[in-house]
């Protein structure tokens, strides 16, 4: 059995930031990463980040990922196990994992769950035809493997992922037939939406897909307009000839390990699903188990990195490291999170966190 001070489950932006923060204070850290390479979703993000210098504004996602990986590599206190998936968290604190096809056990003093989120699916006739992808999957296919998914795409969802992936498809020479969005307004940043509109791609709000069709794979899709009660309006159907349908309809926090570990959970729509109840330093109701990043509420990589740092500092501090420095670092991280969430895009997250912290309501 492997013994370690801080075990971090997930080597994405939150997990890697947590690792270097805890190690910088002196804690020994082990990161478990499911994929062959750490970096999480950053590895495929070719767009530049917003925010301030502290949050790497102006750098592209994959460059930030490389920087975080480098920070962990150069730290003697951080070990990263790739091709390793955590399988369970048990009552006695033992964590099991599948590592390079071996079953291993780990006994950590503190755990930080930074498992991220998975793509949501929606229901419509023929929704399993080949050619229907999650937007994240398309981004991986293009930006990591250099493969375009098809010739002409219908994008479902006008949040930031739908908009950014549409633009990257256009850059790769793929035509976007339309971006449709069930809500009456575009969810993503205007700067992304404007770029796409300027290139002549329609963004149709209050629209949904009614069915996909095709013999062996997608040959087209039928879309229609929705009324103010989100009901389809008869006679507004349009037939679009596309060979790819891309779903960018949101993410769900990957909280199975938190459920298993008996963290108290709460369903908060603003945070995209069931999330663990935690204090402001990100410790859940299971003592010594922290969360950071999308698993604690779906947001952006910028805030995931700061949450990771906060969880890493807090875990190390609770082990007796950084008794002088940690409180100040915690306050700095909290201030950065408030700053990141102060804009209109952060309003929803703030509302969700308020709901999550309210202990008076029913929990499951």
């Amino acid at each position, binding site marked *: 059995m492997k013994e370690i001070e801080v075990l971090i489950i997930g080597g994405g932006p939150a997990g890697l930031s947590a690792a270097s923060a805890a190690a910088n204070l002196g804690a020994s850290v082990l990161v478990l990463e499911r994929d062959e390479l750490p970096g999480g979703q950053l590895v495929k993000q070719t767009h530049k980040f917003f925010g301030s210098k502290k949050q790497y504004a102006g750098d592209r996602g994959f460059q930030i990922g490389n920087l975080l990986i480098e920070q962990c590599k150069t730290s003697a206190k951080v070990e990263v196990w790739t091709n390793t998936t955590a399988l369970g968290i048990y009552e006695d604190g033992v964590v099991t994992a599948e590592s390079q096809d*071996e079953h291993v056990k780990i006994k950590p003093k503190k755990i930080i769950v930074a498992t991220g989120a998975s793509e949501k699916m929606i229901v*419509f006739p023929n929704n399993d035809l080949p050619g229907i992808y999650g937007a994240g999957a398309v981004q991986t296919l293009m930006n990591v493997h250099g493969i375009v998914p098809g010739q002409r795409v219908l994008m479902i969802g006008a949040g930031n992922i739908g908009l950014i992936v549409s633009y990257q498809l256009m850059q790769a020479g793929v035509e976007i037939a339309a971006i449709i969005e069930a809500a009456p307004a575009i969810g993503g940043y205007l700067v992304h939406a404007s770029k796409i509109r300027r290139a002549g791609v329609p963004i149709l709000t209050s629209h949904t897909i009614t069915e996909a069709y095709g013999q062996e794979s997608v040959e087209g899709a039928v879309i229609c307009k929705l009324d103010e009660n989100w009901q389809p309006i008869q006679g507004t159907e349009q037939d679009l000839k596309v060979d790819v349908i891309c779903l960018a309809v949101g993410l769900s926090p990957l909280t199975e390990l938190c*459920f298993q570990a008996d963290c108290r959970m709460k369903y908060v729509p603003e945070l995209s699903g069931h999330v663990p109840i935690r204090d402001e330093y990100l410790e859940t109701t299971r003592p010594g188990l922290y969360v950071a990043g999308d698993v604690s509420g779906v947001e952006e990589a910028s805030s995931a990195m700061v949450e990771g740092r906060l969880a890493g500092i807090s875990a190390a501090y609770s082990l007796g490291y950084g008794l002088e420095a940690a409180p100040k670092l915690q306050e700095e991280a909290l201030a950065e999170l408030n700053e990141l969430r102060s804009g209109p895009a952060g309003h929803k997250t703030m509302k969700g966190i308020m709901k999550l912290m309210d202990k008076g309501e029913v929990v*499951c």
Partner: protein
Amino acid sequence: MQSKETIVCRCEDITLDEIKTLIEQGYRTIDEIKRVIRAGMGPCQGRTCRMLIAQELAKYYKVPVGEVLMPTFRPTVKPVKLGTFARGE
């Protein structure tokens, strides 16, 4: 083309009609539905279908989706080959 099907659980190939029929028959929770039809027991372990089934239950019983009882989560979070256990710790 075959008849149009709306898939809820991709791993086990379970349709929306099948889920709705079970709910109409009186199955009230995600765990019950899982036990009779295997929804959520494939490689993704319910990451795709769990909340889709929760939505159908919420619609039928006219409750907020957050009030639908979640299934029990047990190790392991993904399918693992028996050989891996046999070889490992």
